[in-house]
């Protein structure tokens, strides 16, 4: 793996791999996550995905992609700590899987470059019809997160917990914010952002580095470059003195209980392992005790937000069991703090985590997500390095990591008729 600067503030992460049938490409702009701009950035990539100067509508763009043997080109918007990454991922079949085809990679890279640098315009600015229809679609999409109650509840917890920090902003912004963006405003945002924002490029596949770098340089030759990119730091805050409880009601049969904790422990591998023992996978305390032994939850797991320093628990419960579930989840964390676990629990969690890190390299898109996140946050460790660091974590370090967790917010979603 290499990461090199190929143009001013344009970096290419290159992974040679013979494992896949496809070449996987990505072009991501990095900007600080802010309430005021999150929706603009998200809307921007959706508008850009509607057409380029050469392929100005979905029909022309779809035809171009189909003829590249069903190549994909999709807008992406992600939150990595308090950095917003937005742009496109693209992939196409490797030429060696097709007879008599050449130059697929160059054609797809060109299209990727055009999508970002040469959009379809009308009167010299972004097309009004594209802006209005994507604005509506994006606002609808943000609202539709309510359809999946599990992820909705997890998102609401973060919103409540970080309501005074950029991290509380949804990766796509909010529906009302998106609806208020005008065509002119979006065009200004595009023209202000494009020359300055750091651009992270990614390639994973069988082509050699010179071919890939040359192809990207040519495709992004039209990218204006002036000014300095804005830094994208992530702030960390302590938890409030008392845990805040937020309850909402909705037409659901299963209750969703989410709990948020903050940590100031800088030992990342220990935090990762502690989270794995707490609620990562089927050998964790939450799964084994709260779900299996006590049958309190249908699902119960935890996530470590590495770049922000949070741990969140997500569970589905019978709403009448709320008090007991909170108590038991807290008791499992308390056990970790006091170092109460069987040696096997630590070893199993370690194996689980190391295996997950190692097999990330078996998926081009998972690898892209990890490495673009690292690039966004300015972290340098590779997957094998992280796996090695996790393998070396001791029980004392796990207990210290658990002791550093402070409860911040509880979010509970229950049915209208349920009595708490």
């Amino acid at each position, binding site marked *: 793996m290499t990461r090199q600067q190929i143009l001013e503030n344009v970096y290419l992460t290159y992974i040679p791999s*013979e494992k896949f049938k496809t070449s996987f490409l990505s072009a991501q702009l990095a900007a600080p996550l802010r309430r005021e701009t999150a929706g603009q950035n998200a809307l921007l990539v959706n508008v850009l995905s509607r057409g380029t100067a050469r392929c100005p509508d979905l029909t022309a763009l779809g035809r171009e992609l189909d*003829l590249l043997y069903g190549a994909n080109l999709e807008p992406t918007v992600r939150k990595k700590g308090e950095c917003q990454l937005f742009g496109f991922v693209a992939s196409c079949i490797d030429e060696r899987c097709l007879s008599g085809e050449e130059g697929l990679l160059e054609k797809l890279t060109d299209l990727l470059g055009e999508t970002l640098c040469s959009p379809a315009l009308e009167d010299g600015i972004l097309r009004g019809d594209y802006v209005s229809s994507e604005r509506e679609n994006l606002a609808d999409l943000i609202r539709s997160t309510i359809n999946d109650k599990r992820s909705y509840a997890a998102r609401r917890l973060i919103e409540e917990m970080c309501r005074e920090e950029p991290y509380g902003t949804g990766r796509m912004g909010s529906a009302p914010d998106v609806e208020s963006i005008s065509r002119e405003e979006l065009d200004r945002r595009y023209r202000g952002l494009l020359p300055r924002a750091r651009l992270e490029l990614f390639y994973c596949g069988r082509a050699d580095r010179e071919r890939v770098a040359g192809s990207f340089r040519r495709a992004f030759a039209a990218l204006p470059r002036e000014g300095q990119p804005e830094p994208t730091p992530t702030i960390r805050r302590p938890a409030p003195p008392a845990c805040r409880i937020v309850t909402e009601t909705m037409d659901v049969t299963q209750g969703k209980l989410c709990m948020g904790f903050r940590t100031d422990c800088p030992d990342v591998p220990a935090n990762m392992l502690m989270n794995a023992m707490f609620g990562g996978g089927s050998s964790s305390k939450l799964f084994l005790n709260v779900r299996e032994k006590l049958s309190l939850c249908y699902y119960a797991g935890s996530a470590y937000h590495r770049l922000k320093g949070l741990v969140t628990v997500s569970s589905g419960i019978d709403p009448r069991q709320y008090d007991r579930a909170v108590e038991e989840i807290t008791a499992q964390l308390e056990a970790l703090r006091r170092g109460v676990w069987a040696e096997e629990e630590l070893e199993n969690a370690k194996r689980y985590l190391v295996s997950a890190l190692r*097999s990330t390299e*078996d998926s081009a898109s998972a690898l892209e997500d990890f490495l673009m996140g690292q690039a966004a946050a300015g972290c340098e460790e590779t997957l094998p390095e992280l796996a090695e660091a996790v393998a070396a974590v001791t029980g004392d370090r796990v207990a210290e990591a658990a002791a550093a967790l402070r409860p911040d917010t509880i979010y509970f979603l229950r049915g209208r008729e349920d009595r708490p």
Partner: protein
Amino acid sequence: MTHFDYPRLGERVFRQKLSNGLEAVVVSKPLHAKSYAFFAVRYGGMDLRFRLGDRWRDTPAGVAHFLEHKLFDTETGSASQLFAQNGASDNAFTSSDMTAYYVECTEKFGENLRTLLSFVSTPYFTRESVDREQGIIAQEIQMVEDDPDWRIYEDLMECLYRASPVRIPVAGSVESIRSITPQVLYDCHRAFYTPSNMVLVCVGGMDPEEVFTLAEDLLPREGGPAADRDYGLEDAAPVRKTSLRRMEVSMPMFLAGYKCPPPAEGEERLRQSIIGDLACDVLFGDSSPLYTRLYEEGAINGSLGGNFDQLPGAAYLYVGGDAKDPRRVFEEIGREAARLGREGIGEDFYRQIRRASYGQMIRSLNSFENIAVSMAESYFQGFDYYRFPEVFASVEKSDVEAFLRENVTAERSAFSLIEPGTE
């Protein structure tokens, strides 16, 4: 042991029929860090009525899925804990016509494979654990009942089918699973979990010889035939034309279905699946005239999509998504299918769609799970999935036109709708 090379795909596959009748397959992927084992049985949510001995038996809805959950129990604890000790991650799923157990790991593949084969072939159920599972699965069913994507699919199946058990939810209902006892589970295991009704697919850099030897040593020596099943007699036309439900969703959501003739066996089934997929791409794929027009008009958003599915005795094409005026989108789909059937598909457009569709099939070989599921399905249906490039080449434009003309019609259609609101 026999090996097969597929130069067009760049794939190598090892196969062996074990002495007890089990088909074992190893798809070689030497460069990957992970190894994957997938053990599947041709038994799913639809297999409710079957013959054990000379008696027909009716089992409660959801029993295949319940069995999937309970098979993880062993006399010494849960099989998941044995996997966890090796850093392996295991899971399982039950579909309408298949139950599969799989494990993925980066070390100790042999031990994990041993655990997989052993727990699936050794049932161990107690009254207490079955009772407890009823609570867990009831929660799972309730969670699914809150999921509009799931609900609308169930509604559509109830519209399309009268007798076929495809209309019954795979997990059953909170009521139906109450009548599941350890004895019911033992009986179903005996009826279906027999080597000739199962397949083992491994994907990764493992030694095929070791896989075959291990499976031969560990699994029961004997295997009887699987039980006969009864899927009922199904009509050609849907039972009901429409369904309506209100749920807490942000926008109306629809799913339209077109009931197709029951699927063929053998390689013809693969051919039908390719034709059905091409028909979907031509009719409402991202680059189709209908999709691009409706999207540009704002009548649909990126959620519009669908597929052609083939199950035992039942095949259907479905398409759905969010829309402000779902009935209009449904009408437009019907009109476009009629136009394509009447005027034919444009030569250039067909070439474009064909190329994209072939690329998608190649792309799916990046996923170990896709490979394993396709290998298992094709074994159960009697064809070799990796012959898809040859079969693909045999499909003509006129096949796709005929498919649309015959299947995507008003008589064969049903329409399910979920509107925002509370019941």
